[in-house]
């Protein structure tokens, strides 16, 4: 069953958003993409803060925006709750009155609205801060008030715009876990916008990778991390990704290089391998590795406990090495090394 059925088309000069989007009750969909990809525009179109140029937004069997029919339901009459990136809590109202604002507008009596707001603040664990103004809340607390405020209108669709972006690392971890719990309890659908793959992977049931206004890849976390289809996704999940044409065990890459993979495939293909699968040598290695090439080190950075080495040359790639082997190789920018990847480490899948 589909609760949200949308095809978001917004034209803005040179930029065009064209994004089909569906969500089932209880499902959380993440729009993941770089800045400027059109994620926030998509969210604003769903919320009714921006009109579509084409396509449609249909929620729970009712058209909210369909330019072809001149159907338009303004934001205040959509059952959609929004958690804004910087929360936009009303600075002149207490946390309680911020949360009570929605129920009040939907016709609840003052006392009932405040009781409902107090209950929501209780659910996010902030009942004792109910009378604080937003200016005196920490970032994590403000985020939870914003979530309570959006949920208090009992929305059919909950929208979250970079809900964790404004938080420091420590608060982010706790808040993410808590947000996950609330999203799981939410009966309606939820659409989450983020440029942080961890937020997307942890919070969403399904991911839509948006680049330049279009969906470039859709799937659950596993599918997307295992088989990235664009450089952006590959970078996010930390894989080296190449596009080419497979013929049996050989993938002919764009640019003339070849990679040998263990699994055979025919036709247009992606080839991907992890930086940890790349071994570096000072001299050309003996033995079997089929995928061996001469590369130039263009950069070395810390990456967790290891060092990530950027390789330039016929095949641009990232390689992870231990500090010990980096010292042994004497790695530094400009250095020439031999790189090798075992065929079994290379994943090949249809493009």
């Amino acid at each position: 069953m589909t609760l949200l059925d949308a095809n978001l088309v917004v034209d803005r000069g040179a930029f065009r958003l064209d994004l089909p989007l569906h969500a089932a009750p209880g499902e959380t969909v993440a729009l993941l993409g770089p800045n400027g990809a059109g994620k926030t525009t998509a969210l604003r179109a769903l919320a009714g803060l921006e009109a579509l140029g084409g396509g449609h937004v249909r929620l729970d069997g009712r058209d909210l925006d369909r330019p072809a029919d001149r159907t338009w339901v303004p934001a205040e009459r959509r059952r959609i709750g929004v958690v804004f990136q910087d929360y936009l809590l009303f600075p002149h109202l207490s946390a309680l009155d911020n949360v009570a604002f929605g129920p009040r507008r939907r016709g609840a009596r003052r006392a009932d609205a405040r009781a409902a707001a107090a209950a929501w603040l209780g659910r996010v664990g902030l009942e004792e801060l109910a009378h604080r103004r937003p200016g005196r809340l920490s970032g994590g607390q403000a985020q939870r008030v914003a979530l309570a405020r959006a949920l208090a209108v009992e929305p059919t669709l909950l929208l979250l715009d970079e809900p964790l972006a404004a938080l420091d690392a420590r608060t982010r971890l706790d808040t993410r876990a808590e947000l996950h719990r609330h999203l799981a309890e939410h009966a309606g659908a939820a659409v989450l916008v983020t440029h942080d793959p961890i937020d997307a992977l942890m919070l969403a049931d399904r991911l839509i990778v948006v680049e330049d206004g279009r969906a470039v890849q859709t799937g659950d976390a596993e599918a997307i991390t295992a088989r990235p289809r664009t450089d952006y996704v590959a970078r996010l999940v930390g894989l080296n990704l190449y596009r080419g044409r497979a013929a049996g065990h050989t993938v002919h890459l764009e640019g003339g290089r070849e990679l040998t993979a263990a699994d055979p495939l025919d036709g247009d293909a992606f080839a991907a391998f992890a930086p940890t699968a790349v071994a570096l040598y000072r001299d050309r290695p003996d033995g079997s590795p089929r995928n061996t090439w001469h590369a130039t080190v263009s950069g070395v950075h810390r990456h967790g406990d290891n060092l990530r080495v950027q390789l330039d040359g016929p095949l641009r790639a990232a390689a992870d090495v231990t500090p010990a082997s980096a010292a042994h190789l004497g790695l530094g920018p400009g250095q020439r090394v031999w790189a090798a990847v075992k065929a079994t480490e290379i994943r090949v899948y249809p493009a």
Partner: protein
Amino acid sequence: MRAAPRRRRRVPAALLVPAIAGLAFLVLPLIGLLVRAPWSTMPQRLAEPEVLQALWLSLRTATAATAVCLVFGVPIAWLLARVDFPGRGLVRALVTVPLVLPPVVGGVALLLVFGRGGLIGSWMEDTFGIGLPFTTAGVVVAMAFVAMPFLVVSVEGALRGADERYEEAAATLGAGRWTAFTRVTLPLIAPGVAAGAVLSWARALGEFGATITFAGNFPGRTQTMPIAVYLALETDLEAAIVLSLILLAVSVVVLAGLRDRWTAAP
């Protein structure tokens, strides 16, 4: 040689001398007013019925004019700041015309519209049997005419400075534009509205030209403080000084009320 920890940079004389002269020019007249004031007879003078009458009329009409400015000016400011309509620039220019128009001209223009033979005046006379010119209501109209731009400019500035996305947040919570305006926007821009109201009130209190042209000079009905000052100047200099001092005192009180807003360095 060791450099001074906070070296003061020399102020060029070409800037310092005119600055001091300008300050003297602004402050000396006020000092003159204080020096020439008839302090010994001040209590009796202040208690004179004409003085109290003019003061009471001025306070009442200036306050009423401010209320008129708020009722009409805030919606104008909202339209200018929030609605993108054709000719917005022209409307903004028209709203600020009274700011640069000589008040006497404003008074003449008001007479032509609201006067007995005027466009609206004759209709009002025929329909309701009321006329504005040379009445206390006319004083309020003249004051509101000259004071309105101060309010509109001030409130529009506050609206432009206020984050419009709060209104969007209110909309997603079910608030229509009117509710969002009254419940969210207005509280957020309250300081700007208050500043605009004080400016308008001060402008209305000092109004002379449009008032005397449109409403005339009838003690107790249209003779406001500035008009009383001007007339007293011809007959009784001391009375004029006393009246002026009262207006000066009111201005100082208003300025003190706005101290944090305007006299603090930006």
